[in-house]
């Protein structure tokens, strides 16, 4: 192994992307979505994508806004505190995007089935509802089945495995061997990484393996499961990374306002994604003053507001 190990620059990430691939992305609502990797994915031109998502609203919304999303297996996409993902929703309403609905646990269990190498995962939720009764693009019998327990102790819903081609994950820190640590909530990252064929991780910080070994309990994905690591400080912006910075509510608001019109959203994507030469230019465009203001407070875990605790 070379000294750089699995560490690659962002420009090399597109070699993992293909038209028509299925994709899953880490994060939950305002937290740790792999936004810099996602912007690179959109810049790469990969299209006809299938998303396997839980609550990664920005990923779904940007893929929909960029016109590269064909299908989504998912449970809930919305901008918490703002409202629904408009471009994604309008894509569904216009028939451009096909969807297959789940409850959160339904998505988690399908990814878990893949992660554990099982033909199905039994679960309790979703039974009796249109989520299992009304098919989207997937035949209902391939999605789930209401089965009797072989032990004679009731019935469960069996859901089939979902195996994304690629998982993109943004984490707190990683080493060159691909050992990945994440503080705070971990969303569905563990299941996504274990289910996916290829795992690409971006991290706020690249640390020595000794640092990982000192607190192995923080490791969420061991190096043996990771294909590439990219060093991308503020790589989750405008979402946050616990222990580093919180979500950028202004940026989120600006996008949300732009998402009301297709022209504005195109401009937003051109400005912040397509015409952005690289991640560093992106950070410069956001501005150091803004980035610094998002830094979390050690004891609070989120950004301190002036006067709030005086």
């Amino acid at each position: 192994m070379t000294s750089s190990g699995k560490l690659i620059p962002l420009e090399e990430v597109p070699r993992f992307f293909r038209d028509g691939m299925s994709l899953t992305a880490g994060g939950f609502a305002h937290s740790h979505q792999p936004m810099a990797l996602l912007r690179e994915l959109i810049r790469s031109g990969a299209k006809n994508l299938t998303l396997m998502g839980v609550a990664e609203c920005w990923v779904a919304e940007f893929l929909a806004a960029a016109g590269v999303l064909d299908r989504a297996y998912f449970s809930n996409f919305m901008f918490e505190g703002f409202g629904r993902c408009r471009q994604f929703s309008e894509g569904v309403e216009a028939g451009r995007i096909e969807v297959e609905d789940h409850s959160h646990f339904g998505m988690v269990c399908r990814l878990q089935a893949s992660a554990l190498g099982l033909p199905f995962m039994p679960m309790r939720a979703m039974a009796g509802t249109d989520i299992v009764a009304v098919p989207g693009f997937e035949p209902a019998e391939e999605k789930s089945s209401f089965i009797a327990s072989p032990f004679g102790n009731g019935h469960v819903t069996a859901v089939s495995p979902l195996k994304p081609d690629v998982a993109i994950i943004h984490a707190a820190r990683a080493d060159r061997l691909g050992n990945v640590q994440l503080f705070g909530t971990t969303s569905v990252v563990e299941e996504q990484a274990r289910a996916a064929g290829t795992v690409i991780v971006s991290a706020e910080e690249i640390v020595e393996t000794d640092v990982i070994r000192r607190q192995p309990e923080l490791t969420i994905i061991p190096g043996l499961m990771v294909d590439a690591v990219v060093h991308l400080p503020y790589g989750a912006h405008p979402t946050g990374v616990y222990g580093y910075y919180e979500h950028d509510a202004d940026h989120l608001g600006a996008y949300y306002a732009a998402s009301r019109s297709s022209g504005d959203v195109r401009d937003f994507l051109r400005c912040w994604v397509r015409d952005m030469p690289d991640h560093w230019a992106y950070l410069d465009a956001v501005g150091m003053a803004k980035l610094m203001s998002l830094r979390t407070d050690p004891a609070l875990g989120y950004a301190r507001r002036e006067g709030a605790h005086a």
Partner: protein
Amino acid sequence: MAQPSKIRSLADAVALIKDGDVVAIGGHTARRHPMALMREIIRQGRKDLHVVGWNNGIDMDMLVGAGCVSTVETSYVGIGSFGLARNFRRACETDGLRVIEHSETTAMDRFRAASIGLPLFPSKTGLGTDLPSTNPHLKPFTDPFTGETWMAVEAIRPDVAIVHAHTADEQGNVQLDPERWHDNSPDVMIARSARTVIVSVEQIVSEETVMSRPIDTILPRTDVTCIVEAPYGAHPCCCDARYDYDLEHLGRYHEATASQSGFAEWLADYVTGPADHWAYLEKIGARRLMEVSMKRTTR
């Protein structure tokens, strides 16, 4: 709570410094000097300063080059492995800049004495050397108990001390990271020796953060006049475990200072050009700042 906020803007904080003041500078060599404050001193065109420190580099060299300084009082002015401090050298060799020479311990002792309310501190350093010939604050005296000769190091009471630290709360309780480097300890003496104490910090944190680790507080608010939030405020110096030296920038500085005109251009580019600290950081760019960053987690 009734305690007032001590947060000030960079410009308002530096406005507390007057022409002709004795200004003590925290940090040493190329470590954690209050560079954001010093760039603002240059922007505000302060003159005739008497700058004191215990071990200095680009901080004093930049102030001297910008014409803010009439007297330098320290044990060292150099740009680390790059070599001599060229503005400082030029000012000495051609303009006759006044330099009051100290050794490291005597440079600290004068702050130490003032910080604990003593008029002088006894030392052996300097005996038999030329240091007292340039330094009126070093005078031999006789130990009344043993009759032995000692050097008296006179306490210094700077008008203003400027220090860069890791964190502070709104009220001005200043903390260093638990993994702080012990070379920071003279900053406490420097601050406590001065009448006005301006501290820039990487991040202003909640009162809760401060109170959860009171042992990390190096200066309780009673020692502090005001706080300025200046992330990367020591750049291009290093800031302990948070970020490394920006060697590329220091190298460019060293090259630029080869001539007065080169330095003038550098000043316009990096100090007087950018309107404030944020503009300076934009000028350096996110890429460079992230490259020198060693530890960004605030947990």
